């Protein structure tokens, strides 16, 4: 089963929930942890994985052989990102705009375009205790995250996992890197906080997961901090509130030190195991089980 942890708003506690869910279940089942927030990976700060392998992620970008180019401009017209431009004097490539689709090379009637790999990031894989771990990082000056996310998603595929659980720590927001991270998940946990910001961005994230057809539930972090609007929204929309983590300074202190909440606070270990039971029960009752999801109620 693949469970992704996402949020609309940043800083709500995605990594806290993802890491501690993994730690709470470690030993009970095979677990792999994928930190797909490749623009700012941070799960390793808590899991301290031993990195066993590091691989570059590259994108095929076009190279134009000017001696063959006749300036027909087909390449420029097919490029959705305007990364290749055909002028009467010459054809130029702007590699940082290129998404590596290969359309220009495919269409060039002169065979003037070849593709050359451009390194845009890296993926590291390893082990944190019994947890198989992978994360990625976009290179400096390489703003294109989705191909790096895809490489993280595939990094541990060769190993197989059988009946285990894959936990994906997604980036914040609702844009392409998030879609690349959560697509194909069996369940998406949306972590939010009970504030107007949290609610607004939760609404955007719910729209995204519904578009992708992924069943979802909400974790309210820093519960007690703001107002009741998030709970009211969830009940109105029929989205289960799977867990509420109280707003408490001691949790923040543990996090700030890079600590593991489930080790320091047994009540949270229990709560995160409870979170998993609700997620897996939702899977069994079927993705369409709107009533089933409501039955899960609050912790």
């Amino acid at each position: 089963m693949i469970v992704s942890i996402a949020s609309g708003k940043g800083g709500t506690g995605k990594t806290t929930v993802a890491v501690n869910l993994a730690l709470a279940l470690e030993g009970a089942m095979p677990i792999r942890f994928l930190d797909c927030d490749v623009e700012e990976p941070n799960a390793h700060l808590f899991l301290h994985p031993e990195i066993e392998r590091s691989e570059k992620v590259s994108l095929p970008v076009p190279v134009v052989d000017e001696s063959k180019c006749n300036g027909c401009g087909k390449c420029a017209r097919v490029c959705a990102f305007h990364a290749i431009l055909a002028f009467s004097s010459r054809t130029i490539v702007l590699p940082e705009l290129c998404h590596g689709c290969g359309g220009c090379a495919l269409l060039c009637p002169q065979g003037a375009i070849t593709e050359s790999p451009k390194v845009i990031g890296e993926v590291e894989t390893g082990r944190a205790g019994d947890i198989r771990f992978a994360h990625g990082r976009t290179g400096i000056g390489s703003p294109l995250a989705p191909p790096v996310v895809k490489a993280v998603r595939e990094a541990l595929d060769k190993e197989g996992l059988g009946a285990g659980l894959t936990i994906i720590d997604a980036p914040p927001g609702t844009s392409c890197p998030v879609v690349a991270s959560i697509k194909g998940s069996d369940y998406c946990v949306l972590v939010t906080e009970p504030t107007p910001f949290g609610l607004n961005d939760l609404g955007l994230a719910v729209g995204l997961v519904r578009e992708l057809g992924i069943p979802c539930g909400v974790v309210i972090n820093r519960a007690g901090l703001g107002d009741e609007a998030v709970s009211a929204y969830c009940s109105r929309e029929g989205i289960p509130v799977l867990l509420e983590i109280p707003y408490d300074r001691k949790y923040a202190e543990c996090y700030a030190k890079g600590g593991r909440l489930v080790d320091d606070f047994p009540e949270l270990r229990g709560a995160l195991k409870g979170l998993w039971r609700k997620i897996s029960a939702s899977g069994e009752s079927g993705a369409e089980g709107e009533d089933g999801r409501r039955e899960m109620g609050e912790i």
Partner: protein
Amino acid sequence: MKLAVTAQGTSLSAGLDPRFGRCEHFVIIDVDTEEFEAFSNESVMASGGAGTESAQFLADKGAEAVVTGNVGPNAAMALEAAGIKVYRMSSGTVKDALEAFKSGTLEAISGPTVNSHHGMGGHGRGGR
């Protein structure tokens, strides 16, 4: 020769639009006859590549120079490759830009004047 001006409207009396890639319109003027044609800029809402798309558009229309406020790094590179000269002007109308271009008082620039995504109205890149 053909001169392009980034504009907020479609006539010679329209105000200059200081953005290059995300200007509202391009007014392309034949400097000798003062005949002109206005085009709405299809790149205004592009998530990326607005500057390079605009440079390709001007090159396809045969413009040899452009008067605008600011150009980003990708647009500057594309305009240079296209052989389109860039002149900077911060305010006035399209007509003012034409007169200033003819009188040779405009500052020619050969590199970016702003960073990427400057013209996105404060939204910047999506995502975070």
